[in-house]
């Protein structure tokens, strides 16, 4: 194989490469991802429209074009981001039948956890809100909201009187009898066990690492994690309290 004598000509080669790169960058411009190579960025959907508007607000030099059909307020930017985050295969948590965003409801609008999950302080089971509860608010909102796929799906369920089949995230094994009301009554906030739900677009089991005295990690909802909290707070560590 003929040698190229790279070692001797390496510095020269590299500087030539760098010069070529600089030239390309100057010619092609900063954002090469949009159509119409040039200075105007055109939105291809309502979500892109939101992004471009935000971009234009940041950087007045960027010119954006929003076609009329995409110049709408729904879906909101937040909904778009939430949906994107939910569909991102790298994000934690499973896909739900409706991309319900806790970040939007519990975070932005600060709806109390117990408004929807009403059984938490009176029942062994926390409960998930009925379709009727969702419709209680969503029935009253303007029609534009229906452009959101999730709300459309909700209303379809309501019309058809079909319950929504959520994927369960926080699930204890069958041999554990858990009393939700005892924990709520003890004054713990929901975030302690469920994580910062109000920041989640998709609900998932948050990682938790509590180092036992033996230096072993334990995850949320594992027995070691439960016992650790019980031990710290003087709650019952009797096997029979939960396993019967």
């Amino acid at each position, binding site marked *: 194989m003929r040698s190229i004598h790279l070692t001797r000509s390496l510095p020269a080669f590299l500087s030539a490469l760098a010069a070529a790169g600089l030239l390309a960058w100057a010619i092609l411009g900063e954002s090469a991802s949009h159509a119409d190579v040039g200075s105007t960025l055109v939105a291809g959907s309502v979500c892109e429209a939101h992004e471009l508007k935000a971009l234009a607000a940041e950087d007045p030099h960027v010119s954006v074009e929003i076609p009329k059909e995409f110049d709408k307020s729904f879906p909101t930017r937040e909904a778009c981001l939430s949906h994107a985050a939910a569909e991102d295969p790298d994000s934690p948590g499973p896909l739900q039948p409706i991309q319900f965003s806790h970040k939007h409801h519990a975070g932005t609008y600060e709806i109390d956890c117990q408004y929807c999950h009403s059984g938490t302080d*009176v*029942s062994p089971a926390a409960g998930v809100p*009925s379709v009727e509860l969702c419709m209680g608010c969503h029935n009253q909102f303007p029609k534009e909201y229906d452009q959101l796929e999730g709300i459309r799906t909700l209303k379809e369920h309501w019309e058809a009187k079909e319950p929504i089949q959520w994927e369960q995230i926080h*699930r204890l094994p069958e041999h554990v*009898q858990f009393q939700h009301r005892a924990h709520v009554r003890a004054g713990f906030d929901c975030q302690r066990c469920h994580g910062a739900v109000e920041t989640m677009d998709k609900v998932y089991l948050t990682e938790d690492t509590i180092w036992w005295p033996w230096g072993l990690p334990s995850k949320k909802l594992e027995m070691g994690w439960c016992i650790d909290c019980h031990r710290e707070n003087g709650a019952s560590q*009797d*096997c*029979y309290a939960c396993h*019967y």
Partner: protein
Amino acid sequence: MSEFDRREFLKIIGVGAGGAAASACSDPVEKLIPWVIQPEEITPGLPVIYASTCQECTTGCGLHVRTREARPIKLEGNPEHPVNRGALCARGQASIGRTYHPDRYRSPVERGADGSISALTWEEATAKVASAIKAAGSKVAVLGGQTGPTLSALIDSWLDAVGGGTRVVYEPFAREALREASTAVFGVASEPIFDLTDTDYVIDFGGDMLGTGASPVEHSRQLMGARDARRERGRAARLVYVGPRLDETASASDEWLAPKPGTEGLLALGIARVAYDAVRASGRTPAGDVDAIESVLKPFGPDSVASRTGVPAEAIRRIGSAMAAADRPVALPPGVALTSRRATATNAAVLLLDAVVGAVGRAVTIPPPSEGPVASFRDVAKLIDAMRSGDVSVLLVHDTNPIYSLPPDSGFAEALEKVGLVVSFASMPDETSERAGLVLPDHTTLETWGDASPRPGVRSLVQPTIRPIFDTQSLGDSLLAIARALGQERAAGLPSGSFRAVIESAWSDTDFRAALKRGGEFSETGASLAPGVSPGIARLEFKEPTFEGDGSFVLLPVPSPLLTDGRGANLPWLQETPDPITKIAWQSWAEVSETAAAELGVTPGDVLSIETPYGEAKVPVWPRGGIRDDVVALAIGQGHQVGRYASAAQEGAEGRVRGASVISLLPSLTDESGGRAWLAAKARVTATGSFQRLPFTQGTDNKRGRLLGESISLVALAKGESPWAPNQGAFMAAAPHGEEHGGNGDASDDHGGGHEGPHEIRRAFDPSDDSEDGDPFRWGMTIDVDKCTGCSACVVACTVENNIPMVGEEGVLRNRQMSWLRIERFVGDGYQQLQTGRPGPQNHEALGDTDVRNSPMLCQQCGAAPCEPVCPVFATYHTPSGLNGMIYNRCIGTRYCSNNCPYKVRRFNWFDYQITGWPEPMPLMLNPDVTVRGQGVMEKCTFCVQRMQAARQDAKSAGRDVPEDGAIQTACQQTCPSGAIVFGNLKDEKSRVNTVAEENAGRAYRALHVLNTRPAIQYLAKVKREEGHGTGHAAAGPVRPEKSA
């Protein structure tokens, strides 16, 4: 590649394997499905209780249906209902299974001529019935069991509306003879009501009032209350039983007389004669026609009765005088088993006895005649004639199974062939519905509207507690739909709207919502009459009944305490719960006396051939001492060919009959009232030479002198002599005053250290020491063996509450039954006997001996439990509140704990009953608060820890630290008709569990106490109430069976 060394390799393999394991171990994803519209009253996780009525028999006890997430999971008695006051019998407990039964019809079906079944819609089915009825004109007949008053009235008006027809009410166990007797004796055609509250002398003439009688739950409660051994001697109620067989009531009696079968009425007259003389001598006169009374009683002097019945004259005199002198005596009439061809006269004799001793108007009330049709066997015979002659084109059958329950001699099966269309409303297949051309399945009790009125003053409602699981429709709605399909003019005479609307309008005179919540309308006493004896009694003939057949044994068909008349046979809980007397499950057996068995040359399990002129059955024998030598007894209820559990389909033999039906051996004969005579045949009994293993759960009633089902005589009790004191605390000598006793904490003053007077409460150990010092609880029980009749309601209640699987006949044959609670039945104190090899079943009863002890045995939650130290993985341990906790997910199945348990109350899951135990839709009835155990795991009674947890959480939510005494009721305690089980906190001195034991300290003992297991359960011994004559009365003595000439 050189970079990749051994360490890297192990790391990668380790992580990979761990990752694989982790992903394999994660639970499959489950769905969380909320409501679309959540009902306001339902909070998921909390039970909602509805009041309803049990329709498992005609007694009509009130129910509290406990539902979770809109499905019933447990039935309990309604505490406000005057009949059962919160208790519920075994049959009622098991009846929840009807709603979830896998056999149920999923929709209306049509049976083609070739036997093929096709599903129909309700419109199609209704149209077919309507067109058949239109063509039939007035040749329509309705044959059904007793229903509530509103439905009954609707059926009558329906028949009128559709063009006329016949209605026949048929109940196999109808009390027609009693009604006719009441007409003769009092001139009122109704069934007298017997109230045992505060009684001091009861004679039950074969009615088995505590087991299979007219109102067993109520009578158990009343008798046991009256009899509470706390009361002073002489005021406690004495029970005398008259009957040929040692059944539940005889086992609970103080004296058992066994006259010749069929002569119970003569015995009643003999007693009445003695009582009458005594009553007249004391200056009183019974109400009514004295001349008629005297003319009836005249021929029945004690000596003449003694020779006719076989009961010694001395007993007749003694009992007669006692009845006359008693404060509140009552005599109860015979039941189904003793309904002979002279049943009316027998019942009349008993009613006369009641009248003579002044019980009428007090313990015995005669309600006014009820409105609406009553069950009539005579009408059934007329219907069969009409069917046979082709006068019935459409026959509608509801709430009854006549192909099974009518004797073959009646001709019903043949006559059914001549009926054009048979329509059945059964909710699950039975012998009759399998011959119907159309089935329009009815809702089960828990899905339907209805009402019941068992007696005046008691009106109770039936309301749905779950949406209909399958495509079924209530009988009332089906009839209304058929009428509407016939056209406007037919339907005009009927209510518009649904059957629910009919119920509401029938109850429009009440506050309906309040009635629904309460369970009905209950007034203190209904209208009743206190008539005197009418002259009509003189027209009855009092003599021995006739029997058909030339055999040497009288065939005694006994109602099964669990299967009743056969209707319970398809409920697996009733099949698997052992018979209270013989402890046999899943099979039929024939009872003969030990002497008769010896003569026949048979031992338990040998198959007998029992032959009457009407049929023959091959049944394995169960010899026992508690039956007359000239009687062969067979329980009614088995012998089904249809039904997953009722037939042998459960063992894979589809279509094969399970056991034998005694009904196939009986004639279709009546008594004077036209009612069905059950005791009317004599049988030839021979050994066949073959053998059949009987599935029994307790092979011997000999307790070998061990401290188990104990009894103590009233005399000894009054004197304060307690036979067990030396046994109590044999290893735990009570500490002297003030001295610490190693490791047990404070020696409290009532340990009685050293000083033992006769009336002190002798407690050898303080159960409070068996729970943690800081814990407010030490759970325990007090079980009164004197009150336990062996009815096994607690067993079925526990099974339903705790998701206990049924193992089937094969399982019971291998002793693998899973029930956590069993009723141990012992006769006498027992004796040691040398046992070699594998002894067969043994029986130590004797005629006239009533020393039978029924003792519920469950996990004793021992303070020094032998099962705890031997578990290699710590799956069973002592909880802070004193229980023995069983942790299923930790158990690895070594079974050492069961090996070590002296009470043998631990059950092992040999198979994956989690998968096989509940065929669809039965998983719907599982209690969500109790883990369903998988294979390889031990289980045992937990003192209903799930109820404890729920009660503790409820108390905390309500701001109380601990639940109050009585807030936690274990399933067994809750359902017991006698109130024999009391559960509570032993650390609370004022709790009932302690006060009941202290009041009865003289008869308190702990099971197998000498083993020093420190059990949490105290038993109260059965009381023998002698009258100075020993434990019983061997009245009839050994009677040789008559040899046929």
